């Protein structure tokens, strides 16, 4: 493939950027071809991503070819030559970046992900925007994340400025989310509820619920209040003190007055930037949490708690993210507010006893979460008291600042995102799990066989509630001298039951997916066979 007419003409040296650009782009095209030739999966996402990458790679080649023609002209100046070569270098970097996207395709191979992990989530997203294709992939990092890859393509398109690729890419739309989940939890379907938070980011991006521009006036008003402005002053003072302490060595060569002025200015501007960044991130993260609760139900809070247990680092939370306990508080606060009006439960009078049981189970667990929620404030002894004080003060300010915008966001979400409701079907699903039967709701009396009416959210909630009510085992010391025996016992006590339930839930989700496809008429059956 790389041995094309371009190389035969030998119009550029093999060390030139043009040569490198062609080699990289053709090599990428070869890889894309190989992956496209492999048997397709039933998901549309990977195929669409490969098509987009192919479009842009070809655009890069066309652009480099055009630039090379310019380079061959004798009349161009040295400066123009340099500029063209720099553009070609930028294209090389873009191709390198495109190459890294192949890992998303590799991760979607069916061997790595059960069907039940992908299709039902895809359907859930399509409920909100039917044109969105997704990729769900495991990653080695213990993290769940959302990433709209279209933005990267648009950046590359800006560099290559190729009309054909811009036109082709516009057909895909504005959203192509890559949702990643912790590979370690590949088999723990119950934890994958966290993906609802990542879908929350996608919905937020589409609807612009948390766009800070909408709330800037309100935020400025709160920052100007006496309560917050005093705290802000204290925050700036603390920032200056911290910076002075850590910058002591560089002080020696600078005059005292200039040094103090510089530090004060620098520390204040850094703190302001940090505050703005954190307001944006807090709004985005908490908005995604609220959307997740609405689309998937209370189990999202349980799963969030499980994953956040591990997110306590010595230096506090990473980046601008809100600390786990604040996120948890906001989620529980939202759940309580909606639940007060009994909106999460849609049940018949006859099921009141069961309903109360489930409600009690959820409340008890949420109370446990409140007591056990991880404290993410910095703990390391090497971090000064000043830093800890600054961290706590900043969080106090942020809590006050985001309150108003969050209330407005909640109202907007309520009007646009329908609420998932726990209804009577959940009892039947829990009953099935209790009997170690896959949780699929079917009414066998109907003829022809009724489709399953339960969706992924009902099944996942049933799995969680069953786990909490029947299977959650408390830690108990095992008296054993034999290490292997002890591990086996612990495995049976903690790990095996979770895997068992998780497998049953996954099978239930897959079966429901198939039931739905088969019950939606001939057209969907044909689509199913075509896949």
């Amino acid at each position, binding site marked *: 493939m790389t041995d094309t007419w371009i190389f035969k003409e030998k119009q550029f040296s093999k060390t030139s950027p043009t040569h490198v650009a062609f080699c990289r782009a053709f090599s990428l095209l070869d890889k894309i071809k190989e992956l496209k030739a492999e*048997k397709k999966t039933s998901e549309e996402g990977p195929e669409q991503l490969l098509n987009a990458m192919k479009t842009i790679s070809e655009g890069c080649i066309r652009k480099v070819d055009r630039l090379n023609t310019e380079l061959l002209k004798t009349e161009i100046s040295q400066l123009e030559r340099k500029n063209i070569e720099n553009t070609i270098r930028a294209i090389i970097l873009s191709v390198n970046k495109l190459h890294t996207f192949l890992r998303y395709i590799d991760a979607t191979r069916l*061997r790595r992900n059960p*069907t039940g992990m992908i299709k039902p989530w895809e359907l859930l997203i399509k409920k909100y925007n039917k044109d969105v294709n997704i990729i769900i992939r495991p990653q080695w990092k213990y993290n769940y994340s959302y990433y709209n890859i279209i933005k990267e393509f648009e950046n590359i398109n800006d560099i290559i400025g190729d009309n054909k690729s811009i036109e082709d890419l516009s057909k895909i739309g504005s959203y192509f989310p890559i949702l990643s989940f912790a590979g370690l939890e590949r088999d723990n379907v119950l934890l994958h509820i966290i993906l609802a938070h990542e879908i929350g980011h996608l919905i937020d991006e589409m609807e612009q619920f948390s766009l800070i521009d909408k709330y800037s006036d309100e935020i400025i008003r709160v920052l100007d209040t006496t309560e917050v402005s005093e705290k802000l002053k204290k925050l700036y003072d603390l920032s200056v003190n911290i910076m002075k302490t850590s910058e002591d060595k560089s002080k020696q060569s600078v005059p005292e007055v200039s040094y103090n002025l510089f530090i004060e200015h620098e520390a204040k501007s850094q703190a302001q930037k940090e505050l703005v960044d954190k307001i944006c991130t807090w709004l985005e993260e908490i908005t995604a949490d609220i959307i997740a609760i609405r689309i998937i139900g209370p189990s999202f809070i349980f799963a969030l708690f499980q994953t956040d247990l591990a997110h306590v680092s010595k230096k506090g939370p990473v980046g601008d993210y809100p600390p786990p306990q604040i996120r948890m508080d906001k989620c529980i606060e939202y759940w309580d507010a909606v639940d007060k009006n009994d909106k999460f439960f849609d049940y018949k009078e006859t099921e009141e006893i069961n309903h109360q049981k489930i409600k009690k189970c959820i409340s008890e667990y949420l109370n446990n979460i409140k007591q056990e929620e991880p404290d993410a404030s910095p703990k390391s002894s090497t971090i000064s008291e000043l830093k800890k004080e600054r961290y706590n003060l900043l969080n106090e300010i942020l809590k006050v600042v985001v309150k108003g915008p969050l209330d407005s966001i909640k109202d907007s979400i309520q009007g646009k995102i329908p609420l998932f409701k726990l209804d009577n079907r959940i009892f039947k699903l829990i009953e099935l799990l209790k*009997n*170690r039967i896959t949780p699929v709701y079917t009414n066998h009396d109907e003829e022809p066989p009724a489709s*399953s009416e339960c969706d992924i959210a009902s099944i996942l909630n049933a799995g969680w509630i069953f786990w909490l009510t029947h299977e959650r085992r408390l830690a108990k010391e095992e008296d054993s001298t034999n290490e292997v025996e002890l591990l086996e016992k612990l495995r049976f006590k903690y790990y095996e039951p979770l895997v068992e339930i998780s497998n049953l839930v996954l*099978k*239930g989700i897959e079966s429901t997916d198939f039931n739905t496809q088969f019950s939606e008429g001939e057209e969907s059956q044909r689509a*199913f066979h075509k*896949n």
Partner: protein
Amino acid sequence: MQQIVNHQGVLSKQDILNYLSEEDPNKRITISPILDKRTQIGRCSVDLRLGNEFIVTKETQLAILDVADSKNLKENIMQYQEKIRIDYGSPFILHPREFVLGASFEYVSLPLDLMAYVVGRSSWGRLGLVIATATLIDPGFKGVITLELANIGKVPLKLYPCLRIAQLVFHKLSSNLTEGYDGQYSISTGPKFSEIYNDKEIPKIVRGKIDDIIKN
């Protein structure tokens, strides 16, 4: 809902439908999902479809599996097998004299008053496909059914997930049991490889201590 029969013998279509509609999950036959009741439920059997997970053996990794080698048996078995998953719509090609483990697409649960046999469908048998060698399913069994697939024909066979490949024949027991199957292969949602290393009798047998077995 019609009354469930009390006589022993093979269940007829109507009996099967009655068991499938039983409200109590412990007394019900669960086969989930049945994608098409009209074609899958026969006169005295229920067709099972092929799942998309397989366990293939890696002959190149191991010279022999010796049940007498109790120390390494578990490890050897793990080395010898590889789990693969194929997409719906993609074929799994089973070559002549090849042996793999597959699983039913359906999750099956039996009540305590029934047992079942897994048997092949004759259309596949005529092509040389053997689907199960250990065919008995205990009362109270829950899980997908592991199928021991072998091609004894002379040409490779393309197997697609969701093909109707086997059938279940149900028998009513002469009296009810109080406890059902709770063995090592229960509640599985994919094919399971042999766990023969859990058989406590084997080490005694290979050492020739038959007396110990009788004593215990």
